[in-house]
């Protein structure tokens, strides 16, 4: 990745303008044309650097409830269990991690009852009886933007 791409990714993450010609504003900052910015964004999406371009909303303010869940999944069941878990649109993140509790997923749903229902359904479908639910008490930092310009790109 070259410097222009890295700089563009930083701009796109942090302050994508809410104005009529956002790509024009960005192009001036980068010293390239508006068309070049659009093409570059398309390329970065195609290459997989950008997962999505769009709005990020505050789920709490929209009345949604979230929680973090962990479960112990035997190695041979991982695939099957992750299919069950991932099928819920309310489950947005699911990771395998290096721990006895190896599957970690987040639920963001319209109500606490819906969260309970999802957990119950996962237990029923997978036969795994224990799902630890870790409710948030306080949030100190939530920064999903990554400093791309600051990381050294070997290739």
């Amino acid at each position, binding site marked *: 990745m070259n410097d222009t791409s890295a700089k563009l*990714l930083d701009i*796109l*993450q*942090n*302050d*994508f303008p*809410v*104005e*009529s*010609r956002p*790509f*024009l504003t960005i192009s001036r900052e980068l010293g390239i044309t*508006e068309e070049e910015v659009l093409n570059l*964004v398309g390329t970065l999406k195609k290459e*997989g*650097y950008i*997962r*999505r*371009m*769009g*709005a*990020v*909303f*505050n*789920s709490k303010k*929209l009345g949604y409830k979230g929680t*973090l869940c962990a479960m112990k999944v035997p190695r041979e069941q991982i695939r099957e269990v*992750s299919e069950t*878990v991932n099928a819920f*649109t309310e*489950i*947005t*993140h*699911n*990771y*395998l*991690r*290096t721990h006895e509790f190896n599957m*970690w*997923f987040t639920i*963001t*749903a*319209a109500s606490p009852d819906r969260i309970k229902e999802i957990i119950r359904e996962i237990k029923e479908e997978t036969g795994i009886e*224990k799902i630890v639910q*870790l*409710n*948030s*008490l*306080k*949030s*100190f*930092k*939530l*920064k999903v*933007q*990554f*400093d*791309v310009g*600051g*990381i050294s790109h070997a290739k």
Partner: protein
Amino acid sequence: MLNSLDKDIIRKLQEDLPLVKEPYRKLAEDLGISEEKLMERLEDFKKQGILKRVGAVLRHRKVGYKANAMVVWDIPREKVDQAAKVMITYPMLSHCYEREKTEEWPYNMYTMIHCESTEECKEIISDIMNQIGKYDYTILYSTDELKKTSVKYFTETN
């Protein structure tokens, strides 16, 4: 309270932004409203804190962060605020939360640390502990991303 237009806008804006010169005009056309009206609603959403930002969500593994660690800590409640103050100063630390403990899970603080190597993660942890004191902690590296999407608001099932 959100009215039905607001919900339409939120549903629309959680899709991919069209890659055209005037993306908001295109979205407004799809919604059957003027670009000005859309901008006005977005500004209002921002003011209310409903809209956090418009922009790109990256695949962090792809952009070079190979070691993504969830570090969980057992820190007494009365020390949590103080510890968080130190933790959030690290740019490589993206999330910092306090959560309820459970019988099976004796940790209450959660930090996500994104590094180029596991050594770098460990350095950050020991650096943090030099400032906040020693506490029990565990590092859980992510080995597989099984799912990562965005929340879909106001859809039929959700």
